[in-house]
């Protein structure tokens, strides 16, 4: 019996191995594999984009392109690309994470932000609040998040891209309210983050905490993620509150030149990202609740995307400066969070 098991095992191993290798060699000949390393909330967006783009590329060039997806926290994904994940394109939550990729192993041009239009961010979003239906705690604006007895859910800015946008949006509001008085701003942020009950490591984790586990009165969230929660988990359970002021979140995209060159996918990788700027691509973005750059489409979907005053990352200088001032060790986040 033992011998038979061993032969059976050996057979199944060889079968599996040959099965894999033949399918691999076949796909090399006929299809191009493109790996898009992205952050958490874009799963649904790129599901749609990939389908339409593959079809379009096939029609235009006759080549079959198969786009593979990897999702996770933005910083973690950038790290994986640096460590050797062979991404052809990166579509991350913020420019800082792509800067990090550019700073290592010469993976891409340091001037990547000017490769595509609009600082290489084909779609934008903003930061809004998701509250329980009927808004029982009457949360209207950033001030309400600092009140006693309010339980806030937001991810950790140290690990999550979305969380950094959340933090900067709150900072921007306080900065305007207190006329740039840093002591008062910090007190405001301290009160706000003092109310945070669960600090998850990623945006999707926070959403699950708020919705599935039912913790917290308000979730600070990407606008697109908030809309998605309504769709997936019920409009009868939550509602979106848009604050009086927020931040223009610009998730950037880039071709990872070194990997694309090595795999010979530069052309299709570039076309893939350019597709995001086309009418078709912009429409898909809008349907997935990302704010399109296209002004016509933005008007068309104005009821979905309320026009509110927004600061941008350039109000903080740039991501390198914002990162250093707020999120590096000893930055303002450490100051307000550790001394609470």
């Amino acid at each position, binding site marked *: 019996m033992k011998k038979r098991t061993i032969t059976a095992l050996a057979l199944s191993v060889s079968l599996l191995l040959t099965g894999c290798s033949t399918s691999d060699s076949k796909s090399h000949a006929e299809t191009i594999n493109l790996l898009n390393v992205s952050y958490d909330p874009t799963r649904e967006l790129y599901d749609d984009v990939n389908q339409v783009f593959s079809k379009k590329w096939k029609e235009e060039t006759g080549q079959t392109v198969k786009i593979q*997806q990897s999702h996770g926290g933005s910083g973690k994904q950038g790290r994986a690309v640096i460590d050797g994940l062979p991404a052809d394109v990166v579509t991350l939550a913020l420019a800082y994470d792509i800067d990090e990729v550019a700073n290592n192993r010469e993976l891409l041009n340091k001037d990547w932000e000017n490769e595509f239009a609009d600082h290489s961010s084909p779609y934008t979003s903003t930061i809004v609040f998701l509250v329980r239906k009927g808004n029982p705690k009457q949360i209207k604006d950033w001030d309400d998040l600092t009140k006693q007895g309010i339980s806030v859910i937001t991810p950790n800015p140290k690990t999550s891209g979305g969380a950094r946008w959340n933090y900067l949006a709150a900072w921007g509001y306080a900065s305007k309210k207190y006329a740039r008085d840093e002591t008062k701003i910090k007190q405001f942020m301290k009160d706000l983050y003092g109310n945070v009950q669960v600090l998850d490591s990623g945006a999707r984790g926070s959403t*699950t905490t708020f919705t599935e586990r039912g913790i917290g009165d308000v979730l600070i969230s990407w606008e697109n993620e908030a809309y998605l929660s309504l769709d997936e988990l019920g409009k009868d359970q939550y509602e979106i509150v848009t604050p009086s002021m927020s931040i223009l979140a610009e998730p950037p995209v880039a071709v990872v030149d070194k990997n694309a060159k090595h795999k010979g996918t530069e052309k299709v990788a570039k076309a893939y990202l350019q597709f995001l700027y086309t009418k078709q691509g912009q429409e898909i973005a809008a349907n997935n609740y990302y704010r399109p750059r296209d002004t016509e489409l933005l008007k068309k979907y104005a009821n979905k995307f309320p026009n509110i005053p927004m600061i941008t990352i350039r109000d903080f200088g740039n991501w390198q400066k914002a990162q250093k001032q707020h999120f590096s060790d000893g930055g303002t986040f450490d100051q307000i969070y550790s001394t609470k």
Partner: protein
Amino acid sequence: MVLSIDQTDDKKKSKAAPTVLKEPKAVRITLTTISIAFLFIFLVMPLAVIFISALRKGFDVYVTSITEADAWSAIKLTLLVAVIAVPLNTLFGILAAWCITKFKFKGRNLLITLIDLPFAVSPVIAGLVFILVFGAQGLFGEWFLIHNFPIVFALPGILLASLFVTVPFVARELIPLMQSQGTQEEEASVSLGANGFQTFWHVTLPNIKWGLLYGIILCNARVMGEFGAVSVVSGHVRGLTNTMPLHIEVLYNEYQFTAAFAVASLMSLLAILTIIIKNIIEWKTSHH
């Protein structure tokens, strides 16, 4: 672990001599109730929940969730990793246990400690170690990438991580067993003229087969179920480097709760199946 081997003996004993039990009836009933309640709450109920949630949207949804391309590739990858990692660790476990229990040599204790290391180290650290060694900024730099043989974020990395976390299972199962059996039988065999391999095949192996089988089953379960270490080295590329546990997480995070539980139920079925196979083999051998 040794318990399971003596199980059959225990049953015979308890049937033969129930009067030996002197504990008051109340104590026996309370203890039994507590253990059954415990098993029910921590084992039966969660298992039932998995299957109920998996079938909540009907059998069709269940079937599509596990035959869908990404799920199917995750299943194949998990089985492939198990088929490679389990035999390798079985071989290593037998060799290590054989060395440690039948011979005395310098560094024997060091070897025992090393085998235990993966139990002590967090799986996340185990994964990170491979990133530090084989990652593009690791010891070997981009050498593997340039030569189109990626280690991390590909099958070899997932294999290495799985091997690392499951090294102790077979060896740890065999060492106490072989220690308690001593070396007399082997000495007798050798003195009667058998060579090393004959001694191992005809004397040692039959003695340890149940412990070995138990170790293999534990090892297999862990290989298929490993999340932490594999998560670090996988890169999470769908349809390519996601194993079943990683795929379950992906589905759960995509609000596809039913599909997540469907794949989870498949993993539970695999686990239940291994236990049944173990029992069948045990039963068959005891009847021959």
